[in-house]
């Protein structure tokens, strides 16, 4: 048994090393840099809590936080609900279900920059295909990416389109793990399809749901690529999220100290949300 543990540790070692060097180490360093005034090139000067104080008095941070939370609100519920519904549907014996499953995952496979470029064309105010059809039915044109009112929603829509298939695959795997005996027994007891879904499917999928929510939280709170390609944080600051702001602060303005504090803020927000979801789903039960 002991030697098995050693073998397991050996298998884990390469990943752990990479994790420590490229993720944990820089993260801890980021924590220290948060207390510094540093422009990469010069010597870092100790700045005490100045960067943290700035965070609370920085109106742009609060705008980026509001945008990030709004983006989460726009993407998380549909990414959970619709992916589950799709998974339940594609778990039935339907024609072409394998083809539909494959097609569903394609948006996730595309790199976000490509997704951004494709949707930039579709969303074009004047010559985009979406506004073309909207105009045909007497609606629109909608200023998808160039209006402060619509821009964040438009990017949220693309994000849902992009990640839905991936979440669906996770749910599908979870559904296939649920024993058919349970549904058989429920049927004998006279349970309806809806009752079986509520009493068997949803509770049995709790661990998968937790994982899907955690992954979605991490992906959406850290959203960067699509916004970078589609709106670059604009118009104005309408789509400026915390990570977008972090990038500009640290790598465009070379303010590593404040950039690190924005990173710490992102980490704290993520931990709080993961906590909330774990409490809501009562995973310890």
């Amino acid at each position: 048994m002991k030697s098995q543990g050693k073998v397991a540790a050996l298998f884990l070692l390469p990943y752990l090393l990479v994790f420590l060097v490229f993720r944990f180490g820089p993260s801890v360093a980021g924590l220290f840099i948060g207390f510094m005034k540093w422009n990469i090139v010069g010597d870092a000067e100790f700045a005490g809590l100045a960067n943290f104080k700035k965070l609370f008095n920085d109106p742009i941070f609060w705008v980026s936080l509001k945008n990030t939370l709004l983006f989460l609100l726009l993407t998380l519920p549909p990414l959970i609900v619709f992916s589950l519904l799709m998974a339940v549907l594609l778990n039935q014996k339907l024609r072409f279900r394998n083809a539909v499953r494959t097609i569903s995952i394609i948006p996730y496979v595309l790199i976000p920059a490509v997704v951004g470029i494709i949707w930039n064309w579709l969303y074009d105010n004047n010559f985009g295909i979406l506004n073309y059809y909207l105009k045909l039915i007497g609606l629109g044109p909608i200023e998808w990416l160039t209006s402060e009112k619509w821009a964040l929603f438009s990017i949220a829509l693309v994000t849902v389109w992009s990640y839905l298939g991936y979440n669906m695959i996770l749910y599908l795997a979870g559904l296939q793990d649920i024993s058919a005996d349970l549904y058989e027994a429920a049927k004998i007891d006279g349970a309806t399809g809806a009752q079986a879904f509520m009493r068997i499917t949803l509770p049995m999928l709790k661990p998968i749901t937790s994982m899907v929510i955690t992954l979605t939280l991490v992906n959406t709170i850290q959203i960067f690529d699509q916004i970078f390609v589609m709106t670059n944080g604009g118009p104005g600051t309408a789509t400026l999220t915390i990570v977008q702001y972090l990038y500009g602060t640290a790598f465009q303005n070379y303010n590593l100290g404040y950039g690190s504090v924005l990173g710490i803020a992102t980490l704290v927000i993520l931990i709080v949300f993961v906590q909330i979801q774990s409490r809501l789903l009562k995973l310890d039960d």
Partner: protein
Amino acid sequence: MRTKRWLASFLIVMLLALPLAGCAADPKQKATNSPASANNGGSGKVVNIDFWGGWTGPDLNTMEGLVNKFNQEQSGIHVEFTSLQWTPLFTKFLTEMKGGNPPDVLVMHPFELGQFVEMGVLDSKPIADVGIETVNYSSFAWGGTFYKGEQYAVPLDVHMHGLYYNKELYNESGIANPPLTGDELIATAQKLTIDNNGKHADEEGFDENNIVQYGLGFSMNHHVFYQIYALLNQQGHNPFTEDMKAVELDEDKMANAIAFLQDLVFKYKVVPKGEKSPVDDFMGGKVAMFIDGPWQMPKLEDSNIQWASAPYPKVFDKSAAWGAAEILTFPLKKDNDPEKAKAAIEFVKWLDNNSGEWARSGQLPSSNAGMQTALSLEGREAFINSLDNSVLLPSHPKAAQIFSSTAPSPILTAAQDAILNNKDPHEIAKQLKKEMDSLLQE
């Protein structure tokens, strides 16, 4: 239990996320020339030097060709060329500088010079050894190589806004010449803006909701601010200086500049609101004219469009167009290797002497000799003619922040408030001054 749960959350987030480790953009556009140590045929020592630039479009191929040519022409120096997008390029530069291994030659724009000089990462000493003289360059390009009276760079090229137009669409609408003034621009654009019933923007019954061809296009990003900057200068006002501590902005003149651009979109309806890619719309026949820089020319040369160019129109009292440049700098090297320093100077001299070939990239060479080559190429003349009227943004130490092209940026907010949100021009002017002053005082 509670501690355990929080610890678990922390570890999950750490495993999945990378918020503190930074998110430096993936240099997807990287282009490199790997060293060929056998370059000298096995005899003599090859000095390898690094040359970094921020080209990602068709101009990248032209520069790669130039570097390859240099490497083939002689055997003592091998240039390893790296090109990334500008923002990750400068982040990489500063990181490598900290690590003691910066490139030997780095390309940047004049407005970025001040911040890097203030950081102490550029060396002005090699400039004297390159042996350049002011008489051989346009004064516009030459001026962009100085910061606080000291020369830190060798001019490579210049670029400015100009007006491209579709000659076939001009003929169809009976337009003989491109517009030279603001009024002519509006009138020409109205003639070229057509709805789905064939009516023009200045005709009774024109349907603004079903426009099939717009008269004019321009990028609705930070380039709108560049146009505002040109229009301020056309009114004899340039509020931005190398050493400003606050922006001395004439609100009325700023409002005039903004209002002119807003009217093109919201009053005359000759510019598509929220336009993303004017050059693509132009090539697709959806806009008849567009305002952009000379770097678009290689793309147009590869298309079937019958195009020509004209200088940026004179809307107010004076002619002025936003302009910028690319300059060759020498990062400060801690190792101080004299052979590398000499090789870097040789390479920069060679690039300077061969800048005529660089004209094919669309960029206009800074040297008079290179400019002559550019003159012989289609479409360049109009841009070259507006060289004396072009205005650079100043090389302020905080230029990266105050003139940033990505949000949150004062100039981007002003540009988009003007052209996308149609906000009051005076309010935009006030907001711009407030945001810039705040950054300048930090």
